[in-house]
């Protein structure tokens, strides 16, 4: 089962992204706490992409796919766009004391995504970037 959502890079659209993720996972009986965590992780990834790779340009579009891999109890998200790639695996989050001291609001979102998701991979082909995030969940 694969779900697709096309979204413009205005941060006003994050609510729509969250609703799309939540609705798709509810249909498959994923637990409430798993849903709330992945909704958060995808919100963080999409807001980073909108703000940093697309400067919140409403006309820039990207695609979000959700794949339910029930045989492996895995939910896989793919974010496909054509902007600059920012590989969060290569980003070393500042520690929390540093965030407090320098009032840096960055880094928290990436820390959340890395804590929530089991695997984050990037792939580039034909001018498109795909970020694939997977998490083990329980389907009912």
């Amino acid at each position: 089962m694969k779900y697709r959502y096309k979204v413009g890079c205005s941060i006003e659209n994050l609510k729509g992204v969250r609703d799309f993720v939540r609705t798709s996972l509810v249909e498959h009986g994923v637990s409430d706490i798993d849903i709330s965590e992945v909704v958060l992780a995808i919100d963080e990834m999409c807001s980073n992409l909108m703000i940093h790779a697309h400067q919140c340009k409403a006309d820039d579009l990207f695609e979000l796919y959700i794949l339910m891999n029930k045989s492996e109890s895995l939910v896989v998200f793919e974010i496909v766009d054509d902007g600059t790639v920012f590989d969060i695996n290569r980003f070393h989050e500042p520690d929390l004391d540093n965030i407090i001291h320098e009032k840096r609001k960055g880094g928290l979102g990436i820390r959340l995504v890395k804590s929530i998701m089991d695997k984050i991979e990037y792939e580039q082909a034909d001018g498109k970037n795909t970020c694939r995030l997977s998490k083990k969940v329980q389907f009912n």
Partner: protein
Amino acid sequence: MVQIKRIQEDGTDIIIPIGEIDASSSIELDLTIAKSVGEGFTKILIDCSTLEYISSAGLGVFMSYIEEFSDKSIKMVLFGMNDKVLNTFEILGLSELLTIVKTKDEAKQKV
């Protein structure tokens, strides 16, 4: 997507976010807290009972006041969070850095 109310009880400012705080709405929270500080409140409660969702943008707002509040002896206590919102704070270990309690009564005792 977030509406923020404020009420004052016994010299304590109570900030009540209603709805969802994400990258597009965290500025509202920031402005409200700044306003409370600007008006001279030193006891600030955040009533999270109607907060349905918070992302790192909102968490970052709370984090950004920790040092200033400690310097100015301003007490901020968060209360009434639902399990999902609390989980978001806990994933990052923020429940250690911020004062988070269950009820309004407990919160009032902490400020």
